[in-house]
């Protein structure tokens, strides 16, 4: 839940000896964190692409997709496959958190400037940011994780628990019926569908714009793909973290190498593909939702 990025240039297979030295790069995400994000968005896209046809099964596009991939049986298989992948990623993340908290006794994982746990500053940041939007105050400065990123994180965390639990309860309904009352089996489909709808709409609109498509980052914030950020970006986007690390003398330890050309391009292809798929799914979701309402 916190930043464990050490500068480990030797572990970055895509890195090469610093090319120019003109621009300084800082390591912001570990390779494992970037892979986790990649697994997360790949399986999420898969779940959305296979879940939407089931949610809007009377939509012609849904039937077309279902028919093309081999009918409902195939759709459900792919949905479950992606669900298992995402579950494993989620469990890996929990194991990672537990390991860092219990084994490595990492400080600040559950509280403090680098923690994902919301604090009072986040509340002040929301208010301050909204005031800045309408010109009523200065732009707030952000730490390691800004409030909208914490919201993203916890929304996904909560979403995975809710959608995951309801999904497995449908998958193994007779088993879950041993513990759950009958009406819960009805509620589970509603919960699964609505929460998934929220996740899809949120990720493919709010997360995309907040993180990638807003003018400061447009067209894509590459940091989650390359793991690195330039000195200028770091200083401006995370002023408080930058200053804190500088004053603690830890900034130099985070210096990494400039991401190599092919990796950046590769990441762009992957990233833009994901965004494009997401936007198409967003449009289909809106058509499905408002076409039926």
């Amino acid at each position, binding site marked *: 839940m916190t930043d464990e990025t050490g500068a480990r240039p030797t572990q970055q297979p895509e890195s090469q000896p610093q090319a120019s030295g003109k621009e300084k790069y800082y390591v912001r995400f570990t390779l494992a964190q970037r892979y986790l994000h990649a697994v997360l968005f790949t399986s999420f896209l898969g779940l959305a692409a296979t879940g939407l*046809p*089931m*949610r809007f*099964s*009377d939509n012609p596009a*849904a*039937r077309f997709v*279902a*028919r093309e991939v*081999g*009918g*409902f*049986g*195939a*759709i*459900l298989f792919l949905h479950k496959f992606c669900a298992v992948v995402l579950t494993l990623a989620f469990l890996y993340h929990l194991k990672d958190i537990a390991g860092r908290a219990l084994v490595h006794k990492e400080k600040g994982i559950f509280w403090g400037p680098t923690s994902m746990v919301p604090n009072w500053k986040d509340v002040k940041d929301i208010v301050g*940011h*909204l005031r*800045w*939007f*309408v010109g009523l*105050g*200065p*732009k707030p*400065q952000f730490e390691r994780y800004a409030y*909208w990123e914490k*919201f993203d994180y916890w*929304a996904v965390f909560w979403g995975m628990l809710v959608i995951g639990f309801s999904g497995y309860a*449908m998958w193994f*309904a*007779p*088993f879950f*019926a*041993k513990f*759950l*009352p*009958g*009406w819960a*089996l*009805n*509620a589970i*489909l*509603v*919960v699964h569908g*609505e*929460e998934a*709808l*929220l996740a899809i*709409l*949120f990720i493919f*609109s*709010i997360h995309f*714009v*907040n993180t990638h498509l*807003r*003018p*400061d980052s447009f067209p894509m914030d590459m940091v989650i793909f390359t793991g690195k950020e330039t000195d*200028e*970006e770091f200083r*401006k986007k995370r002023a408080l973290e930058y200053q804190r690390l500088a004053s603690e003398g830890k900034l130099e330890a985070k210096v990494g190498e400039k991401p190599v050309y092919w990796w950046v391009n590769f990441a762009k292809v992957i990233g833009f593909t994901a965004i494009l798929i997401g936007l198409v799914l967003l449009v289909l979701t809106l058509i499905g939702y408002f076409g039926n309402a």
Partner: protein
Amino acid sequence: MQDASGQNVGVDADVFHSSIHGSLSCTDCHTSIKEYPHPEKPVAVKCVACHADQAAAIAGSIHASASAHPCTSCHGDAHAIFPKDDARSAVYPLNIPRTCGNCHSDPVLAKKYGLQNVYSVYMDSIHGYAVSKEGLLVAANCMSCHGSHNILSHKDPKSPTYKTNIPNTCGTCHGGVMAEYSAGVHGKAVAGGNLAAPVCSDCHTAHSILQPTLADFRMQSTPICGSCHKGRFATYQDTFHSQLGLLGGYVQTARCWDCHGAHNILPASDPASPINKANLIKTCGRCHADANASFVQYQPHANPRNRKLNPALYFTRFFMNLLLWSVLGFFSLHTLLWFIRAKREQGKSGPTGEAKDD
């Protein structure tokens, strides 16, 4: 042998002698012809002279017009009429669809009389298939349901295809099903004079009857039940049973009759009904092998929009929608304002510049 106008008037003696009228002599039918050479215009043979019963029946039927429907229009060449159990006969069971089809596959005629063009759909139906491909003499051909000489409009209460007569008509062959149907709610309603209740053809159609386990039939018949049971159909459509069925290639999910029964549908209060509480584990268990007492409390027609009937579900949906729209509402506004502000900042500091703080 040709007449003056060049028309062939010869009769194949071998065929004629093997026909059902083979023992008759020519003048038994051609009673008006007494001398040779024959008159230019011989009087038409009157089949009624011998076949009075059939003539009476046809006179009261929809085919009453003798000029439009002479006996030969169905029985074929007058000199080659065979008994109806002879494969050469035009009214041999396996030949009947083709014989009727001579007229009833003609779109012009169908349009003229406001009839559906049923021949082709019949030929593709399970009955048509049984006749044309399997050669089943017992399979329903046109005559089995409509009769032969005494065919009446389906609007005529005496017609075997009149709504209330249909169960008996189909029951001629499907006796077991008819008994089940008569004991069920639909059968009782129809017998009680409720013409809105379905008979066989309302669910199975009349001519394009499909094998009921076929995917097409499973998909087409659910909306048929829904055409009367609108509310139940709407709530069914909210469930995975319906949603999954709509995605091609997966029709195994429960259709109406998988739970309610098909012919002997009974109210849930009836202990013999498959949806009676005591029978649910068995009924659901036909698909869900591990169904237990809690599992079968699942409501296949739950309505999350109905607070009175399904309060828990109603509030679940209400909460989820509240969550959905409040999160999206807040962040849409948040992101929109941010986007506008960041654009303006960008404009101030040039296209490449990061937004400068105020």
